[in-house]
């Protein structure tokens, strides 16, 4: 039996919304401890790591661990139907091999989608030694990325003693975002060593667009290392983390 009830459908919506552009199908692992999903996009440039422990749910009842294969585009269409502050109940219909999603608000609405077969290969956790982290406002980051998209395909992230910087440059022009110490949108800055790396903008905007602008995000960087983006999930109980491989310009 699998029944999981969340007080607010938003968490699920953000998780699916941020993942749907990267990955077509995903294997969600339901265990008595909680729900986990880790997947990479087909070209192995981006990774999504999602975890929601049992205590992040109002009600959580999973006796037997199960891996459920889900088409994310279909799932996204369904969660998009949830209204703000709707309760969400996820339920497995074993007999018909479907996953039901119930929205409870002014009324009770139930939608379901068929489960699909997905490979059950477990992805290892990458080992990356980040040297700098910053907590920033999601809205500010989204704006910086949108600016950068105007001029180019790639964007450089930099964390140093002065703050957090995004720059993009191409023959179409330049774009720059600065968040210096003392700026309200730069909530925390932690440096072992200044770091900078370049990334594809499209992946970053896909990852960040599901966040609401009032959220904050934690960025981890290392020079020429992947970027890690952490979204706040269920008051820090859960995890929605993205990794994106850098671009390294060789000679």
């Amino acid at each position, binding site marked *: 039996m699998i029944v999981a009830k969340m007080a607010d459908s938003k968490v699920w919506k953000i998780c699916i919304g941020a993942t749907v552009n990267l990955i077509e199908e995903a294997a969600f692992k339901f265990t008595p401890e909680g729900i986990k999903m880790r997947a990479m996009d087909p070209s192995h440039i981006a990774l999504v790591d999602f975890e929601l422990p049992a205590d992040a749910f109002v009600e959580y009842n999973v006796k037997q661990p199960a891996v459920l294969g889900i088409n994310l585009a279909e799932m996204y269409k369904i969660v998009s139907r949830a209204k703000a502050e709707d309760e969400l109940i996820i339920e497995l219909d074993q007999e018909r091999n479907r996953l039901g999603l119930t929205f409870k608000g002014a009324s009770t609405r139930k939608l379901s989608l068929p489960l699909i077969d997905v490979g059950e290969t477990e*992805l290892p956790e990458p080992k990356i030694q980040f040297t700098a982290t910053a907590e920033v406002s999601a809205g500010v980051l989204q704006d910086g990325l949108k600016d950068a998209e105007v001029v180019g395909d790639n964007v450089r992230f930099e964390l140093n003693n002065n703050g957090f910087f995004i720059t993009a440059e191409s023959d179409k022009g330049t774009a720059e975002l600065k968040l210096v110490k003392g700026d309200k949108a730069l909530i925390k800055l932690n440096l072992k060593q200044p770091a900078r790396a370049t990334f594809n903008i499209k992946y970053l905007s896909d990852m960040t667009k599901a966040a609401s602008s009032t959220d904050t995000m934690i960025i981890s960087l290392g020079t020429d290392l992947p970027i890690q983006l952490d979204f706040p999930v269920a008051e820090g109980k859960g995890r929605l983390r993205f990794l994106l491989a*850098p671009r390294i*310009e060789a000679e």
Partner: protein
Amino acid sequence: MGVQLGDIVTKQKVELEQLRGQVVAIDAMNSLYQFLSIIRQRDGEYLRDSKGRITSHLSGLFYRTANFVEAGIHPVYVFDGEPPRLKARTVEQRRVARTEAAEEWKRALEEGKVEEAKKFAQRAGRVDEPMIKQAQTLLGYMGLPWVQAPGEGEAQAAHLVQRGDAWAAASQDFDSLLFGAPTLVRNLAITGRRKLPGKDVYIMVSPEVIELKSVLEELGVTQEQLVDIGILVGTDYNEGIKGIGPKKALELIKKEGSIEKIAGTEFGEKFEVDPLEVREIFLKPNVTDKYKLKWGEPDPDGIKRFLCDEHDFSESRVQTGIDKLTKGRAERGQVSLKKWFG
């Protein structure tokens, strides 16, 4: 032909996309030969320009390479140098087989047997010196590097992988494994929807990745023993022992330990050349560290002059290829996350 190890080697099917960001050392002769045999007109005749010159190899090299450059793969072609002395016989056998096939091809055409003609036509292909020069010129215009091997191209390609300058060697032959390539990728040039020869059936071909380390582990043999297995089965440098296939060879080597031991058994007399000399070719290959890999911008004007003006390629199709090269070039530098998995 190369050594036939397909039966005892585990291959892992992958998608072209999964190879993004990787440098692949491609056996140039092997690819050109493949293009020459599969890229044909309906009756099996080569593609030719208005002056009657064969262009099948250029068509394959340009369009297929553009496809994997677009998929984010960085190819480096490795050309053969001087073949080892022992290859002379293989070379002669191939020449005879080609001449025979060419005659059969003509005969089938005269008799109006199109499918049969095509089959023989494919066997009659020969990569000559001008074709190699043309291929190198085209690669130059495409902004892609190529390496001249002192000896066998496959040995040099394996060497590039061993030195970490390439992620894998690409070839249809398993010889790369005997030359010690840590990773081999097959089907790269023929990935996609392909017609089965002689039938009206289409199949999807995906790249296959073979890791030398896992092959050795699975078979429970050393690199030297794998080479010995190859020698028993037959390589480009020796006939192999009649009646011994890969499975039997594996069994024998595991039982006896090495080819020296086998030379002392009933099979000993059956080697027509010194197996130890063949082994040297694989274990101490003739390779060089003197090469430079540099990926540049494609030169659209150069490509069009060469392919369209000189060899009568369709301008619009060539433009599509150029667009793919440009796109792939723009995406260069995108690293894969696999680097950070323990």
